[in-house]
């Protein structure tokens, strides 16, 4: 199959592209919008904002979440903030600068057009969220406060204590709830997507499984939006919520949507290190802490004294030393690797020597305990609850963990996947963060896609379909997909082996973390690609799911998700193997500078890798979309 990946960015300067697009886009008249049904899968920032806005415009919307309520989506856990090029601080920010920082932060592996649009609409997001009642932090004069985040030299991050994601999601959820109350959105909760249905190459709808009853049901629509988040849980231990999974995106991929850059995963530098083998997840400590916390390790590997007894001259403030101009606010991938190198060299701290210090004693001395408490109080409390140590008295211990995935479903400028009528928004798509996402940009992207991009681009697709019939759920393609889904879930029950889905999840996660985590090598990836199929075969033979498929069964849900993680994991390793360069979160040990920094190969790899499913997890086909840089010059990223 020949596939041409056309990004569909309007011609002309990138700064004008979105205005050009909006001027030319086809419209659906207000009275005709109700003739179209749009399905939105996922109710996080991207999904809730898209569903609410589309419904408000007049489309019939069906929204799906596997949670009990839309408000549980994992966007809620984002702590630090949301970027916007408002320049309220007058410190030199602009749309162009946010655009440039995002492209550079992504190590020149993102598409210029999409990123520029993101920077443009960032300012509307803040206006919109304030109008909805999001209680952002304010100065005493009543104006909005900002702070700075990694990879930026301006203060453009808006925040609501350490719970910005919560407040933004509640804002989007309230707008969605309003549309549900008005009858414009039908909400299907505790319902999981199990397949995507295409008819004659177009997306015709989805098949879902009711988690309460196991019932498999088809839903037809004119267009479908996947806002189903990232796949960071492939590592088993990550900062993602327990239920985060790749199933929706993966099922779309298997039906023809190309999956782009799966090896671009973000390892976040500031998480609480693992403390015992039964641990189920890792907890993030917001990047905002790096505004005032200083990262250090002892200079000597065998220094086992408590932190307070190690004198200043025997401490190595690694980020300040290596990256003086950005210091403790170096981007995430760079900070993570610096921490890893320190721990690998035996200078790790804590009982398992698996962390580095994040020290607030200077900030407490400079600002006073009250100010530090005001800024980070809830994070400090959370740390104390988990680690059992008080960070006002002794430095936090942190270590990198899987946090976010830049890869995802390939989408064009309209956020449409390679299946016409199927869109992907938020973390589920690949488009805006290149090989590394900057802090406080995920919330920005989710809301940009949902509030300000999809409502335009979906109309452009729907307008020519006015008054034309679409396949209903009685179409054979739906029946086939229903049957396949029923067989798939019955299949897990029928194996009757000896190991639980969690057992296999831990194992697959360990392999991916060891060989496709913070540092990758050809040898390691090849090893992973020989171990994963063998383990997958064992999964298919030795899985045990107790209970039945006709009532609530959390083990069965988990089995389906782990199955898809296996297939995705193999693709991640292949993608990482074929990308023979280092960029952003993808660090191949063979390709590094003398100082251990990522070494890109722009000649060969200034492109997006988009994979086509062929029926076998290890035999997917790689396609490429060349990245053109017109507004920025390709440069070696330096934060020194």
């Amino acid at each position, binding site marked *: 199959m020949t596939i041409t990946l056309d990004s569909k960015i309007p011609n002309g300067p990138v700064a004008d592209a979105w205005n050009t697009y909006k001027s030319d886009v086809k419209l659906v008249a207000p009275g005709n919008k109700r003739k179209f049904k749009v399905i939105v899968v996922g109710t996080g920032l991207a999904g809730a904002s898209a569903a609410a806005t589309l419904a408000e415009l007049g489309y019939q919307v069906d929204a799906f979440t596997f949670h*009990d*309520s839309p408000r549980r989506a994992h966007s809620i856990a984002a702590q630090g903030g949301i970027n916007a090029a408002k320049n309220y601080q007058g410190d030199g920010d602009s749309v162009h600068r946010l655009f440039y920082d995002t492209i550079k932060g992504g190590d020149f592996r993102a598409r210029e057009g999409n990123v520029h649009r993101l920077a443009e609409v960032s300012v509307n997001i803040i206006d919109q969220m304030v109008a909805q009642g999001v209680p952002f932090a304010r100065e005493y004069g009543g*104006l*909005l406060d900002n702070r700075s985040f990694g990879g930026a030299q301006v203060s453009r991050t808006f925040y609501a204590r350490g719970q910005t994601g919560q407040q933004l999601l509640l804002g989007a959820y309230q707008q969605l*709830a309003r549309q549900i109350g008005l009858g414009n959105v039908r909400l299907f909760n505790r319902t999981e997507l199990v397949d995507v249905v295409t008819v004659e190459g177009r997306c015709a709808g989805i098949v879902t499984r009711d988690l309460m009853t196991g019932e498999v049901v088809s839903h037809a629509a004119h267009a479908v939006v996947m806002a189903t988040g990232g796949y960071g849980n492939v590592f088993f231990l990550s900062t993602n919520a327990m239920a985060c999974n790749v199933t929706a995106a993966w099922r779309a991929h298997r039906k023809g949507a190309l999956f782009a850059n799966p090896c671009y995963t973000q390892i976040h530098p500031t998480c609480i290190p693992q403390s015992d083998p039964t641990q189920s997840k890792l907890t993030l400590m917001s990047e905002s802490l790096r505004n005032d916390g200083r990262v250090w390790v002892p200079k000597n590997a065998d220094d086992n004294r408590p932190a307070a007894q190690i004198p200043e001259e025997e401490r190595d403030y690694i980020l300040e030393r290596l990256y003086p101009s950005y210091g403790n606010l170096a981007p995430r991938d760079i900070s993570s690797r610096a921490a890893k190198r320190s721990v690998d060299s035996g200078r790790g701290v804590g009982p398992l020597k698996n962390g580095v210090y994040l020290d607030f004693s200077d900030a407490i001395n400079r600002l006073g305990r009250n100010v530090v408490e005001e800024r980070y109080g809830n994070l400090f409390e959370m740390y104390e609850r988990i680690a059992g140590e008080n960070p006002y008295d002794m430095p936090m211990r942190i270590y990198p963990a899987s946090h976010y995935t830049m890869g995802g479903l390939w989408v064009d400028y309209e956020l449409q996947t390679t299946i016409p009528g199927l869109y992907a928004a938020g973390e589920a798509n690949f488009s805006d963060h290149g090989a590394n996402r900057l802090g406080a940009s995920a919330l920005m992207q989710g809301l940009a896609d949902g509030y300000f991009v999809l409502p335009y681009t979906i109309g452009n697709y729907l307008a020519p379909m006015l008054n034309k019939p679409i396949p209903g759920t009685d179409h054979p393609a739906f029946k086939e997909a229903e049957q396949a889904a029923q067989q798939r879930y019955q299949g897990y029950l029928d194996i009757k082996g000896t190991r639980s889905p969690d057992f296999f999840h831990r194992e697959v996660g360990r392999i991916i973390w060891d060989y496709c985590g913070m540092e990758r090598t050809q040898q390691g990836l090849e090893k992973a690609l020989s171990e994963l199929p063998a383990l997958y075969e064992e999964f298919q033979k030795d899985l045990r799911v107790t209970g039945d498929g006709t009532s609530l069964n959390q083990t069965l849900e988990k089995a389906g998700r782990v199955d898809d993680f296996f297939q995705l994991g193999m693709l991640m390793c292949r993608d990482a193997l074929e990308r023979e360069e280092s960029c952003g979160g993808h660090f191949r040990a063979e390709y590094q500078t003398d100082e251990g920094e990522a070494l890109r190969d722009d000649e060969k790899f200034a492109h997006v890798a988009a994979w086509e499913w062929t029926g076998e997890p290890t035999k997917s086909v790689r396609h490429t979309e060349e990245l053109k840089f017109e507004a920025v010059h390709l440069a070696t990223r330096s934060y020194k």
Partner: protein
Amino acid sequence: MSNHLKNLKLKIWRQDGPNTSGRFEDYIIDEISDEASFLEMLDVLNERLISDNKLPVVFDHDCREGICGTCSLMINGQAHGPERRTATCQLHMRKFKSGDEIVIEPWRASAFPIIKDLMVDRSAFDRIIESGGFITAPTGGAPDANLIPIPKPVADAAMDSAECIGCGACVAACPNGAANLFTAAKINHLNVLPQGQAERYKRVEAMVETMDEYFGSCTNHGECEAACPKEISIDVIALMNKDYRKSKVKNRKELSRG
């Protein structure tokens, strides 16, 4: 370094479905690290049950960071267990000691019917929000975010209420099964902000009356505040009552104006 707890006796509520009767079942945890979280202890139990070919205990949970509000356990009769300001998922085993008996039940409230084992249906909360827990602000028409300054104490007060994670501990802890703390927190978040004024009285009337359809009445026990993982103050209930009383006059006036 971590220590280990030994010989924990768990009494867990098991119920096959919404319409069947439930019972307590006993389980022993031989050994668990005190670094483990409470839910990780249940994960360990569930792994064992699966390997014994039994049905694992169903419980709701997701972020395990205390923010999504999904987890919901009565632990020894206390909503979210013994640690203040802490949701179940953030409770760690270091709060218990070897040999302890731990009773684990689902939220107990008639507005939250049991789905299975420890999982309950809290969709009545969503109905309250749908009835008025929002500011009508269609996408695209918002003025500049700094156009209306909001005094810091007002923004802080809104945030204090907006921190509510919607877990339902307030209802579970209340002897009357009332949802006044949840509803009042949601109302107060929006009603103190300048952006929330246009719909202030309509909002409070709709939300209070939707709440009354599902939940019991508040008699100011204050159990809700003690159980709330975000320590939301019961002052918000007084503010809600004040606005509700006013709404009965204000909304009638609005109506009579046509």
